[in-house]
């Protein structure tokens, strides 16, 4: 390489494709293939992520993966990511032990529009690993409870073993000012929660459709089904928000991989209203 070669220490002014180094402070096993990593900065930290934003996490030798932030500013270690071991990048991240250095670029993307939820009834609906980007939303809503109407947190998973943040869900359930329901496709003996598709929980929750906002995250099919159910129940598609996923690669709207029609999902999303997303997703394979 020509030009100056220098070791990036605590200097500012990082180019957008160059990571900041963080150390894994804590590794929490959520399920058999889902891990939460809590990160502390070694270099100058990145800007504080908003709920719904994501970072590009780099494990040495494992490449980068786009991971939504699952932590919030009120926590002891605020920068957290909940990762499901899928491809080689995420498998490498899930295998990291505390003390390992990782690269972090970001935060990127448009996050959840929490301002839309003020004075409204809010439904937070997540499925599988999709609940992770919604965890900071719940923190925010509960942290500012009087600003919002009725709150419902609805979580879907394949089986009881696939539910993340089980302890926290229980703490929220016990508060009494938020409805928390967990629904599995396939129950196990002793399961006390609901059994079925998470969209069915919507009919069992009380809300005023003309004053309601929904935040959805999960597999695309799940989001389609849930959104359809919400629209059926009378919600405005401009007030239903989903977190889209495409091939996030550079995360800065340069590489072109994540495009969905006119949207760069990394920069115009990943959070978009259902009104905007639905016609784009309806064009198969665009």
């Amino acid at each position: 390489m020509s030009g100056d070669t220098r070791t990036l220490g605590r200097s500012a002014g990082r180019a957008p494709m160059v990571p900041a180094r963080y150390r894994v402070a804590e590794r929490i096993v959520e399920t058999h293939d889902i891990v939460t990593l809590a990160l502390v900065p070694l270099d100058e930290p990145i800007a504080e992520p908003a709920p719904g934003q994501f970072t590009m996490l780099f494990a040495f030798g494992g490449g980068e993966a786009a991971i939504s932030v699952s932590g919030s500013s009120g926590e002891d270690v605020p920068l957290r990511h909940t990762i499901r071991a899928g491809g080689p990048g995420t498998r490498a991240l899930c295998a990291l032990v505390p003390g390992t250095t990782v690269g972090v670029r970001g935060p990127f993307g448009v996050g959840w529009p929490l301002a839309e939820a003020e004075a409204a009834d809010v439904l937070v609906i997540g499925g599988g690993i999709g609940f992770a980007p919604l965890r900071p939303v719940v923190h925010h809503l509960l942290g500012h409870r009087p600003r919002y109407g009725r709150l419902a947190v609805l979580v879907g998973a394949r089986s009881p073993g696939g539910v993340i943040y089980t302890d926290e869900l229980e703490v929220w359930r016990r508060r009494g000012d938020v409805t928390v329901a967990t629904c599995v496709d396939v129950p196990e003996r002793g399961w006390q929660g609901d059994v079925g598709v998470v969209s069915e929980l919507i009919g069992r929750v009380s809300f005023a459709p003309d004053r309601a906002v929904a935040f959805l995250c999960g597999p695309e099919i799940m989001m389609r089904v849930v959104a359809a159910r919400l629209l059926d129940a009378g919600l405005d598609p401009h007030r239903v928000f989903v977190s889209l996923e495409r091939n996030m690669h550079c995360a800065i709207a340069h590489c072109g991989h994540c495009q969905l029609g006119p949207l760069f999902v990394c920069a115009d999303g990943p959070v978009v209203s259902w009104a905007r997303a639905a016609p784009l997703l309806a064009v198969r394979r665009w």
Partner: protein
Amino acid sequence: MASIGDLLARQPLLASLDRDDVDRLADCGHIEVFADGSLLAREGEPADWFYVIRGGRVALELASPAGSPLGIETLGWHDMVGWSWIFPPHLWTCDVRAIGTTRVIAVNGGCLRRRCDDDPAFGYRLMRLFARLAAERLHATRLRLLDLYERDHVG
């Protein structure tokens, strides 16, 4: 105080019926409360009722030779449980157990069948509604079979 017809009319599916039809259902119905753990229905027994849940939850289960029963599905507020009253042999196909204190409107199947026979037009409207309920329940079941969360359809 709300009548049974008023309560039934709030159920989303039943809300699509005329109030007259809802009242016909109400005529065959009464309010019932089930204690936690008690059975609203037992597999193989005569299915004389369907239930509209007004509070609490129920678990649809199949008893297992050993160990606890296998859960099929849970239903809650506003859900309708039971369609075996419609066709012979009029037998429940699974257990229905109350989770927590469960309040329902119980509608008698025999009463309704006679009303449908006497008034086929009403019967047609009612069957259409139950067909829709079954279709929705089937679609939901199919979605569960797809294993959406773990087959790498990552959100």
